[in-house]
């Protein structure tokens, strides 16, 4: 998948645990085909004040604020995470193309099997989606990273754009080895009694089952316009959700929010469910159903 060999098509989505290697061990044990770290930048970042998460009737909204100790410190965790026997993808953010390239280079030097460029965090200023929504800067980020890193570079796309296929084409043309679709959907919640926004950052990213139909549509549209592999992400809770993403055109899927309720074994359960589905429908491999819905 985009230059990375996976034992199964499930991956941990970035942002869940992932600040310490040890906490990723249980995810690897739970059957994830790859683990993706929390996003790491050049310098330490504290994140936002609480509340950083709020539960709505249809999903979670979070604005944690990209806390991370900086790549200099984080390389220790990358080295340790390599012990779990599954590929380690390091999520990278920056405030400029040079930042992304420097962090990606250090992550790969520490042992990252791939990097995922976070150009889609919906709640951070001057990084994340502010980069991913500007196609010129996005292309520059991907090119600069590809110029210094031999390992695969994935680009995690924002659903908060007018036409995600356009963004996908730019990232693919600039050299992305795979595209992750999508990050969370920009959202907010206001407490009716206190009459104020709940998140300290006011605006955050919606995850969970509510965004699945949006992410499926994004994957479908991207598959129509680019040839690079797509990693589906957004509200996947069970094998059924995962299969829907594969049919839409994803080669692999990422699971995040569902690890909170279903535990780390959600990866095993989804993988088994996909296998059972393939057998029942007479398919020989996952590859046979990637993008199958487009052929109708």
């Amino acid at each position, binding site marked *: 998948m985009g230059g990375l060999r996976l034992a199964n098509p499930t991956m941990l989505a970035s942002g869940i645990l992932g600040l310490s290697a040890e906490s990723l061990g249980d995810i690897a044990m739970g059957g994830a085909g790859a683990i993706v770290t929390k996003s790491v930048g050049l310098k330490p970042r504290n994140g936002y004040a609480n509340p950083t998460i709020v539960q709505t009737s249809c999903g979670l909204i979070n604005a944690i604020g990209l806390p991370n100790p900086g790549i200099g410190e984080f390389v220790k965790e990358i080295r340790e995470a390599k012990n779990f026997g599954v590929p380690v993808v390091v999520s990278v953010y920056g405030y400029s193309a040079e930042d992304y390239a420097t962090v990606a280079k250090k992550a790969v030097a520490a042992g990252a099997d791939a990097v995922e460029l976070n150009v889609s965090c919906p709640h951070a200023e001057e990084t994340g989606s502010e980069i991913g929504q500007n196609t010129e800067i996005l292309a520059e980020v991907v090119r600069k990273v590809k110029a210094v890193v031999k390992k695969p570079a994935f680009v995690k796309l924002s659903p908060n754009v007018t036409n995600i296929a356009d963004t996908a084409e730019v990232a693919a043309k600039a050299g992305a080895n795979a595209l992750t679709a999508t990050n969370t959907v920009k959202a907010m919640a206001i407490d009716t009694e206190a009459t104020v926004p709940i998140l300290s950052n006011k605006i955050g990213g919606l995850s*969970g089952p509510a965004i699945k139909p949006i992410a499926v549509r994004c994957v479908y549209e991207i598959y129509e316009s680019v040839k690079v592999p797509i990693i589906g992400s957004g509200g996947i809770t069970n094998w059924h959700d995962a299969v829907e993403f594969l049919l839409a055109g994803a080669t692999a899927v990422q699971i995040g929010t569902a690890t909170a309720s279903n535990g780390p074994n959600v990866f095993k359960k989804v993988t088994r469910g996909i296998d059972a589905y393939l057998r029942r429908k007479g398919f020989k491999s996952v590859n046979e159903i990637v993008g199958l819905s487009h052929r109708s």
Partner: protein
Amino acid sequence: MKLSAYRIAANKLRTTPILSIEAESSTVKTFTFRDQRCARAEPGQFLMLWIPSVDEIPLSILHAEENGMVSVAVQEVGEATSALHNKTIGELIGIRGPFGNSFTPKNGRILMVSGGTGVVPTLFLAERLASKTAKLVFAIGAKRKEELLFMNRIKRTLGGEETQVIATTEDGSYGIKGLVTKPLQKLLEREKFDMIYTCGPEQMMRKVFDLAEKCEVALEASLERLMRCAIGLCGSCVVGRFRVCKDGPVFTAKQLRQVKAEFGVSKRDFSGRKIPL
């Protein structure tokens, strides 16, 4: 159909007015409010308390009654707690929880060791267990007499036979002079206990843990870490492979042995960097 994350019922934020405020010391106040979910909390569990437009903080539950009344004791230590201290009766706070596990109740010979505001969950536990234990010793330490919290309530709870309260202050203004761990060594050499429950500054708990290991007594300790999501997703509160919000906050001696390198030694700051405690 499996439950999805958004259906973690206890995680939904409930806004509720403060019903009473009690000063426990010059820096600690007890806040009481009504919340049906937290009213069913067990000793050791915690909740997230939102101070609208300011912050949201993790707090040990001090008391929970079937009628829905819940209380927490809060020390003024920074911006958030100071904003909460400035609130008056009737003002709104937000509640999520209860979260995490609880102490495993035992009825045998029990020793509870608490320091500072660590007395909150141990007192809650003592009130639930006092009538059932074969022996109950409650050791409490603070810097000075004024900071020994809930002394009257502790004495009232431990009024029966086969109970003992041991109080220590660092300045000697009340009880034994020194740290709360000081009288424990002799106590553990002299008497056999079936279980130690401890909550307080982590270096204190580490000393209690080391003593318990030496004397081969079972132990459960309640840990505190930076909390954000409180539902095991964000990873802010990790100690070794454990998430304090979900796998804890109460850990057994067996679990603590796995995180000896961190327990009482280091924690993670807002950026996730490991720093000395």
